[in-house]
């Protein structure tokens, strides 16, 4: 292996390890939030927005009908009701869906330090797309 190949391999290892570390911890945070919220939901510590006993007659309905019958909001409207056990779970789900943002930011900084402009732009655009998707602006969630 030439010196250039060794350097390239080392750079790729550094990228992978940084991404892995940040992905691991951000995922753990999401899972922890999800497990705590789910435990609070199932064990009745946080009262649910939709009673557990009613779920079998509701989870077989199309989403539009379900939202109408249970008065559950779309978009980020659930955040105002996150003191309810079921909707509190969406905090953990949101954290999981956002897990890739921290590793992408970590990579962006690494590429910026190395002056690898193409990969800086790629990471930045992916981050913007994820943030737009989360905002609900692109998806009509609001």
């Amino acid at each position, binding site marked *: *292996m030439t010196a250039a190949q060794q350097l*390239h*391999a080392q750079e*790729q*290892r550094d*990228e*992978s*390890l940084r*991404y*892995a*570390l940040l*992905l*691991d911890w951000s*995922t753990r945070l*999401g*899972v922890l939030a*999800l*497990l705590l919220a*789910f435990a609070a*939901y199932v064990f009745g510590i946080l009262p649910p927005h939709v009673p*557990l*006993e009613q*779920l*079998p007659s509701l*989870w*077989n*309905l*199309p*989403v539009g009908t*379900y*939202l109408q019958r249970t008065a559950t*909001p*779309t978009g*980020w409207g659930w955040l105002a009701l996150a003191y309810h056990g*079921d*909707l509190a*779970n*969406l905090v*953990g*789900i*949101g954290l*999981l*869906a956002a*897990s*890739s943002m921290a590793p992408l930011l970590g*990579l962006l900084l690494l590429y910026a330090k190395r002056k690898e402009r*193409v*990969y800086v732009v*790629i*990471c930045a*655009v*992916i981050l913007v*797309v*994820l943030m737009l*998707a*989360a905002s609900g602006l*692109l*998806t*009509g*969630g609001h």
Partner: protein
Amino acid sequence: MPKSFLRALARWQQLGLLAAVFLISGLPAYAADSVVPTSTMPWWFWPLALFVTCFLIGIVAVPAGIGGGTLFVPIIGGFFPFHLDFVRGAGLLVALASALAAGPMLLRGGLASVRLALPLALLACMSSIVGALLGLALPASVIQIALGLIVLGIVALMLAAKKSEFPQVAQPDRLSSALGIHGVFIDGASGRAIDWQVHRTPLGLFVFLMIGVMAGMFGIGAGWANVPALNLLMGVPLKVSAGTSGLVLSLVDSSAAWVYLNRGAVLPMVAVPSVVGMMLGARIGARLLHVLKGSVIRKMVITLLLFAGLRALLKGLGV
């Protein structure tokens, strides 16, 4: 974890898969657009059954490189009493969770390439949002039929391909050279160091644009399409394809999952037991990926895709 234990687990995994195929094939499926009957079981039964099912799917899905959502949607949508809207929302989260759980391990093991994943994920992330919006607008039966046909097409493609474990790439294309997309990985099964490079990168980028649409539309993740595209089209070794597919999935499914979340199609009682079960199973599955031979993974991919494709097609046709 000892290798002998992992190999024994792999054998049991294959037997379990076959048993699951026969067992589930014998059960009745609901047509895609039919009203799902209300269950008479207590509310806690179905979340518990979901957890166990997803744990088993997680073990199988990661070494197959197809993402848990590919199996989740046809199995849970067909045999559990939840509406397809919630199944697809949970399916995307399951695929996401499966990819997130395995991602760090695959990256540390050198089986996933960040440089390969990022350009592909960029286009697929954008198109998956479009796909998710289309998927929530189209009738479920149309989506199921299209899904079944696409998956069966991939099975045919994989059966026809002769060399896929270590594809021969004589000359990398200019784009992949400019982006520095190449690498070396140590094959855990043979102990060999494998140099890899890619070709047809522009075509690969276009294919991933289409894959993103399908991932969002069907709510099943995209590993089933990622692996053949990386392996057969771009010439990436099978194990690196499977590993990198997980990394691409973790990004693509994130953007599509937000669409379902914003539209209220994520029901925590369906999604959380599925996600947790899948993540636990995927951790075991990721260890098996490093130990299993590539040819074994390939057979598993074909079997699982054939099964999932047939289920989706039959369900879409109301059979």
